[in-house]
Structures are given as structure tokens and as C-alpha cells.
């Protein structure tokens, strides 16, 4: 198995802005790494640099302990799954899966056997002789995975592989990818802009913005102790509420901070509670199943909270929201960095 090290990677496209600024990360062998960030943050470029499809302007890329900056993609022994699958439309599923093996000189009988083995794992057996054009989106996605798996490499790169699937299929495929990682034990570098995928799949998550690495850590750490306001805001559904800390009743701490209140630390009350709370006016409520997502205006600003549906039967617009300041996050207003408060 091979680990990957990126050291001070810089990349700019000719005539364009710099897309990666001194990015450094180290992926251990067998780790499931998810690189997440909004569009244009440089995550796909980073993946293409690891694949060898782009060249870094500066910095070092090391794969399995060997400097890989000048290695051609075919010499890196890495498999990649593309966002649009990039299946060869003129080849059957079998040929698509076996193409990489053929290029490596594997005899026909052996590569056919391998293609069938992979197809069985991915439940693609009935479609082996079909062309990609005759497959559904989910089946194409599996073929793309099969093509990568057939080669028995120890490193997989996945560029938003689920973004073209509908929601139900995405959830199902997410589980399959996680399962596959467990079975293969390979290093997977997975790029997505979907934070649910990031948090549910990764051993470690790298959050990127504007070509800068914001934070690289375990999903729990990223969620519970985000490095800055951007990371806190990017991860979490429904998103975290940001309000000026000094506008929160009960706040006795330092000035110049923004409080980050995740909806799960807010409690909605029909009557004024005993502890510190904010009176709010309900602007909109969204039914999410057993819960309601409540968008409220408060003296501190707009807040989004979750409340069980049965707790709010009265239809009133005037509510109270209390909060657990011990579980709140605080960010410096100047630089957006998270501030650790000692209480």
C-alpha cells in the first residue's frame, strides 16, 4: 500500500489566478481521505496533480515514498474515477473494465476472468456485453469503479464520483464505496463538495477554500472544533448560526467575537425559559419528517433551529430559543479563527 505526501504544492493555470497556494498534506496508506470545499477551491486540481494529469508549479508530490512530480500518469500506478465516469463509449462494459489490464499486457483469458470477478462484486454481470450508452447512471458509475478496481492498485482517486446520481442512489453508492474501502484496504482520495459525503466517508477530511487548506483532520474534530468560521459554516446541516456573541443574553466573555451556534445546541420553547434565551419571531418552518426546521428572527440576528414537530402544535409565531453556551463555538471577528475560551 502506498501513502501520498504533498509538500508546498503551488499551481496556477497560464493567464489565470493561482489555484493552489502551498498546500501540504500527508495521506497514510489505507486511509480514506476526503477533500471538500466549494467550487473553484482547487480540490479537483489537487487530485489531478496527484494523478499526474497536471504538473505542479512548485512543491513535491511523493507517492509510496518516491518523488512523483515528473512521473507520467501511467507510471504512478493510481486508478482514478472521474466525475463524468469517462467510460469509453465504443467499448463494452467488459472491455472498459479490462482495458487497463490489456494495456499492461495481461493475457485475454486472465483479464476476462478479472473483469468478470469485478463485475460480480459490483453486480454488473448481466451488463458485461453492453455499451455504456445502454446503462443507467448508477450502472455507469459502477463500471467506472470496476475499471479502477480491476487493476488491483493500492491508490484510488475519486473526483466527485456520485455527483451525477440522484439522492437515493447516492446514499446507496456511498455505503458501497465505504464497504469497498474496507474490502480493498486501499488509499482513497475522494473529492467532493458534498459535506455529508465528506463527514460520512472520510477517515480524515481536508477542507479547502480559494486554494488554501483550511483544516485537515478527523471528521469529528472538523465538526466539533473547526479551525475557523469558514470550516464551521461549510460543514453541518442545517448550517451553523453565526451571531455577535455580545448580543446573546447571558454572555459575559470578551468582546469582538462571533458565536457559532449549531442548530442542535438550540432549544425552542413556547414560553420564556428560565436560563439565558432569546425571544424570536418565527419566519418560516420547514417540515423535515419528525422535526421542524425553524427559521427565526431574533434580536441577535437570524437563527435556524430544529424542534420536534409534536412540541410545536400551537401555531404561534412568538417563541423563545435557549442555547448551551458551553457547546457554542467562538470566532475572532478580525481573522475568523476559532477562539478557545477557558471558562
Amino acid at each position, binding site marked *: 500500500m502506498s501513502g501520498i505526501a504533498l509538500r508546498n504544492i503551488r499551481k496556477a493555470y497560464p493567464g489565470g489566478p493561482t489555484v493552489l497556494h502551498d498546500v501540504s498534506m500527508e495521506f497514510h496508506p489505507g486511509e480514506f481521505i476526503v477533500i471538500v470545499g466549494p467550487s473553484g477551491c482547487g480540490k479537483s486540481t489537487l487530485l489531478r496533480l496527484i*494523478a*499526474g*494529469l497536471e504538473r505542479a508549479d512548485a512543491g513535491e508530490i511523493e507517492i509510496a515514498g518516491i518523488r512523483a512530480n515528473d512521473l*507520467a*500518469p*501511467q507510471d504512478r500506478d*493510481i*486508478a*482514478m474515477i*472521474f466525475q*463524468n465516469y*469517462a*467510460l*469509453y*463509449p*465504443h467499448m463494452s462494459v467488459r472491455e472498459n473494465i479490462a*482495458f*487497463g489490464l490489456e*494495456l*499492461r499486457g495481461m493475457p485475454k483469458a486472465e483479464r476476462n476472468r478479472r473483469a468478470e470477478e469485478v463485475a460480480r462484486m459490483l453486480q454488473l454481470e448481466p451488463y458485461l456485453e453492453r455499451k455504456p450508452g445502454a446503462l443507467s447512471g448508477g450502472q455507469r458509475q459502477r463500471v467506472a469503479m470496476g*475499471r479502477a478496481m480491476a*487493476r488491483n492498485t493500492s491508490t484510488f482517486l475519486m473526483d466527485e464520483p456520485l455527483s451525477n446520481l440522484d439522492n437515493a442512489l447516492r446514499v446507496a453508492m456511498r455505503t458501497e464505496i465505504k464497504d469497498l474501502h474496507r474490502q480493498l484496504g486501499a488509499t482513497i482520495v475522494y473529492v467532493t463538495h458534498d459535506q455529508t459525503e465528506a463527514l460520512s466517508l472520510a477517515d480524515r477530511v481536508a477542507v479547502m477554500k480559494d486554494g488554501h487548506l483550511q483544516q485537515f483532520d478527523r471528521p469529528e474534530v472538523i465538526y466539533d472544533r473547526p479551525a475557523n468560521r469558514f470550516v464551521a459554516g461549510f460543514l453541518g446541516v442545517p448550517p451553523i448560526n453565526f451571531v455577535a456573541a455580545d448580543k446573546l443574553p447571558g454572555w459575559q466573555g470578551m468582546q469582538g467575537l462571533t458565536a457559532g451556534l449549531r442548530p442542535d445546541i438550540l432549544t425552542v420553547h413556547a414560553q420564556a425559559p428560565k436560563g439565558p434565551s432569546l425571544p424570536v419571531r418565527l419566519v418560516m418552518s420547514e417540515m423535515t419528517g419528525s422535526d421542524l426546521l425553524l427559521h427565526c428572527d431574533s434580536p441577535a440576528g437570524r437563527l435556524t433551529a430544529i424542534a420536534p414537530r409534536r412540541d410545536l402544535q400551537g401555531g404561534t409565531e412568538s417563541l423563545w430559543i435557549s442555547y448551551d453556551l458551553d457547546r457554542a463555538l467562538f470566532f475572532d471577528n478580525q481573522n475568523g479563527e476559532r477562539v478557545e475560551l477557558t471558562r
Partner: protein
Amino acid sequence: MKPENPILTMLSLAAGLLFLAPVLYSVWMSFQTADAFYAGRVSFTLDNYERAITQFSFARYLINSLIVSGLVTVLGITVATLAAFAFARFRFPGGDLMFGATVATLMIPSHISLIPNYLTLAKAGLLDTYAGLILPAISNGFAAFFLRQYIRGIPKALDEAAYMDGATHLQVLWRIIVPLSKPAISSMALYIFITEWNNYIWPLVAVGKQDLYTLQIGLARLYRINPGEGLIDWPLVMAASTITILPVLVGFLAVERHLVRGITMGAVK
């Protein structure tokens, strides 16, 4: 599909016949004896074909034309595809300039290069050879331009997937780009073949030996051969013309489906 309009159908049929009439007339004429034709009578014969092939060496000219046009097509399409792949997929110093120069060759009338080509081949000692007939025709700016545009329409992710699978540049070209460019390549191959098949000026200039004449040269020389009394033997000329047309027609029918797809490419997504 819309229901057929009988008036439009009739008009289309009439237009088709109008285009076909000269060809059909010449084919019909090729089966007449010269005497009967000039006397305004009808007399069916295969004699004109036999004379064209045996007496006037049209079998030899046909083979020469097939060799020259065939090789020009194979070599020309190979060179054009390689150039198109490079222009479509790689950025290299001077690449844009070279592509500009390739496109610029389309604006130069081919007759301008006649004398320089002749002098070059004379110096190389290639006049009166197959190589002399073939080499000047294998670089085709239009084919390179057309194929480059087509290849640019093929998602680059397919190349990248192949590189990740372990392919070299040539394997990407041969296993991915060429199969996906079949319609365009077929169209261009037919275009090059027909252009070379009909080429008259260059073979006329580059070849003096009768053994190397192509059909077009042989056909033109038939006009000068009188059956007597200064009359041109039109049925013989038409038989030779039919021999000249036939391979192109067969070639067209073979790749017609691809040709239409190639020409209308990109019209709809």
C-alpha cells in the same frame, strides 16, 4: 415522420433525375457502337469496354489510380490524424503558429505549388515514379483542420482515463480517439480519395511514362485518338469514363453513412 407530400416527392424525383441524366446518358452511350451512335441507331455492345481495357490500357490506368489514390488516402489520413491529435490535445511551443500555417495552406491555390513541387521532385529524382505522384499529396491541411475540430469535441476526460489506465499517447490515439472519430475519418478519407482520383494536373506534370498514367490522364488522351475522319469515339470515351467513375461510386456507397454523419457532426448535441 411527416406524411409524404406527393408534389414534393415528384419534384425531388425530377431533381434527382436531372442530376442523374448526364451520368445515365453517358453509361447508355458506352454500350453503343460508334457507327450506330453517329447514325442515330441503337446497337448494344460491350466492345467499347473491351477496347478501353485491352487496346487503350485502361486496366493499367485503373490499377495506377487505385495505387496512387489508395496510398495517398492511407498516408494522407494518417498524417492528418496525427497532426489533428497533436493540434487538438497538446500545447507545445509554436503549436498555434503551426496550426495557423496549416489552415493558411487552404487559402493557397494548389496550382501555385505545381512548379516548386515539380522542381523539388526533379531534384530528388522522383519524377516518373509512384512516389512522385503520391508524396506531394499526402499533406492535407483541410483534413488536419477538420479532424482537429472533431477531436476537440471528444471529451478530454476519455484521454485522461486512458492515460490513468496506462495508455501511451499513441495508444490513446489508436484505441480511443480513432475509433471515436470514425465518421470524420471516413469522410475525410473519402474526400482525399475522390480529390486524388480526380487529380489531373499533377499526374500530367509529374509523369511522362505511359505505364504510370492514371485514369484521368488516360481519359484525356482518348480525346486525341480519332477513330477516323476526325470524329471523337464518344462511346469509347464514355466506356472509359464509366470505368473511371465506378470505383468512386463504390467507395462512396461504402462510407456514405459515415460521410453524412461526419459532415453533419455537431449540428445537434
